[in-house]
């Protein structure tokens, strides 16, 4: 009887490649939210001269397709130049797995997102980005779209939790429309900070709660 996963997906799910943590990683990136039950953390070790990915590992707190995509995308990225790794898409991974069910897009896409974030952070940290754009409200909103609201299962922007964004002297202040003692307040705060603090012109990220 068929599970809606291809044999290859099940194979990667049961025996995932490149699993674990890189202790002295150059960069670590996390996508997803533990409260929603889908999260992937990616570690990169990059050769500073050739800019090739020497080692790549992932940890998953996610569904079978999340795990399988993490496994295959790390296979694909390994050995590639960091700029080329940035070009690997979710679709490349899905194709390599022989297809993924449409309902599973949002959780498997996390692996690709994590890879892209990791590359971006690496390039930022190592001064590889030539032109710096100043951080605007739009950029912040785009970043915050990756933070989930566990109450609704959709992100905090779409579910209208962002009440206010203030940018002043490199300090970003985000006001979230939740009481401070809400069961998810801590998680959301942590994730917002993680999403924004590495930006080149950001000194500090403050998260306030309404009420």
């Amino acid at each position, binding site marked *: *009887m*068929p599970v809606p996963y291809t044999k290859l997906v099940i194979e990667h799910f049961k025996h995932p490649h490149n699993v674990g943590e890189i202790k002295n990683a150059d960069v670590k990136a996390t996508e997803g939210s533990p409260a929603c039950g889908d999260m992937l953390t990616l570690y990169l070790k990059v050769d500073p001269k050739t800019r090739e990915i020497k080692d790549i590992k992932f940890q998953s707190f996610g569904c079978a397709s999340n795990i399988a995509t993490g496994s295959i995308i790390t296979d694909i990225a390994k050995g590639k130049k960091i700029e080329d790794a940035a070009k690997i898409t979710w679709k490349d991974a899905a194709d390599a797995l022989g297809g993924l069910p449409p309902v599973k897009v949002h959780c498997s896409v996390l692996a690709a997102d994590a890879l892209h974030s990791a590359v971006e952070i690496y390039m930022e940290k190592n001064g590889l980005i030539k032109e710096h754009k100043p951080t605007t409200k739009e950029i912040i909103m785009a970043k915050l779209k990756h933070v989930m609201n566990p109450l609704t299962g959709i992100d905090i922007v779409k579910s209208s939790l962002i009440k206010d964004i203030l940018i002043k002297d490199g300090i970003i202040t985000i006001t979230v429309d939740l009481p401070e003692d809400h069961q998810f307040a801590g998680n959301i705060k942590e994730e917002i900070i993680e999403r924004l603090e590495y930006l080149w012109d950001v000194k500090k990220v403050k998260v306030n709660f309404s009420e």
Partner: protein
Amino acid sequence: MKVYLDNAASTRVDKRVVDAMIPFFTEKYAVPSSQFAHAYGIEAKDAVDGARTLISKKLGGKFPEEIIFTSGGTESNNLAAIGVAFANAEKGKHLITMQTEHNSVLNPFKRLEKEGFEVTYLPVDKDGIVNIDTLRKSIRDDTTLVSIQYGNHETGTVQNIKDIAKVVKEKGALFHTDAAIAWPYLPIDAYKWGIDLITLSPHKFHGPKGIGILFVKKGTKIEKIMNGGYNEFNLRPGTENVPAIIGAKKAIEIFSQKDVAYIASLKKRLLNDIKTNIKDIEINGSMEHSSPHILNLTFKYVEGEAVSLRLDFEGIAVITGSACYSRNLQASYILMAMGREHEQAHGSIRFSLSKYNTEEEIDYTVQKTEEVIKSLRELSPLGKEDRE
């Protein structure tokens, strides 16, 4: 001899349909919505999706998600009328239907009237047919929905829904047809004809009871009338009745137009022989535009329930257009709308056929009907002047 001629009420479930259903009771019983948890659910989901694809195609639809499974024709009609009226209330609050619709269409419209909607109930002519010009004139800018039955459940009269749909489309309203009686005995082509919503009832064509279908053309604005889970594309909550869906699919698969031709020949035989042998009868409904399996006749000077009970004594199952002479007029509002007198409405008998009926059964029915009518007319004080 036992002769079942009440197929417009419900039909015998085809053995092949039952056989297709049984495994889904005892083996493949999982809930299709829990697909990612286990393979059983996936098999159920595949089966249900397969049913949607087939049914949508047969109706001239384009997408499997245009098929919504409900608990029956009544719920489908409720969902179509109330769901479309409320979802489009911003555009307008005028609705149109027909006086001879099934109660499961009329009653939701009556409820909508209480909720501030305005409803036009179109009249029909003596054959039960609605006038398309009258319809055209009735459609206003604020008309959101027109609901016209395809085949009538009591008389078998068939409306020209192809032309009706065209008029409704020109005027920019949505069109629903209750095809519970007519389909699959008569063709339908949702996209080509321009029909937005279609009600079907599988137990009328050898499928199981407890399952109904509402075709909802993609993009049609409609809202749910029951609240709960997200089943049926978030339009109808509740655990999917998988065995019944599979049964409905099978019934549609095996339905054959050859059977329709055969049923039509039986109907012709029945009518001709009754006409030859029994005087003072009247045909209710159109002869030209009629469902092949329904024949409704009035036997003058006698009452319908008496006729049908006497026929039941002889093993023949038919129904009367009126349950009783006096208070309970509900069922004969259709004949009254066609301009019949009470007396005529009361003697009406509906014969409805299926592929399981035989020529012998028809001959037996004619013979027994003749005897019963003769006997009851002897009892009757009416019509003596005409007969003596």
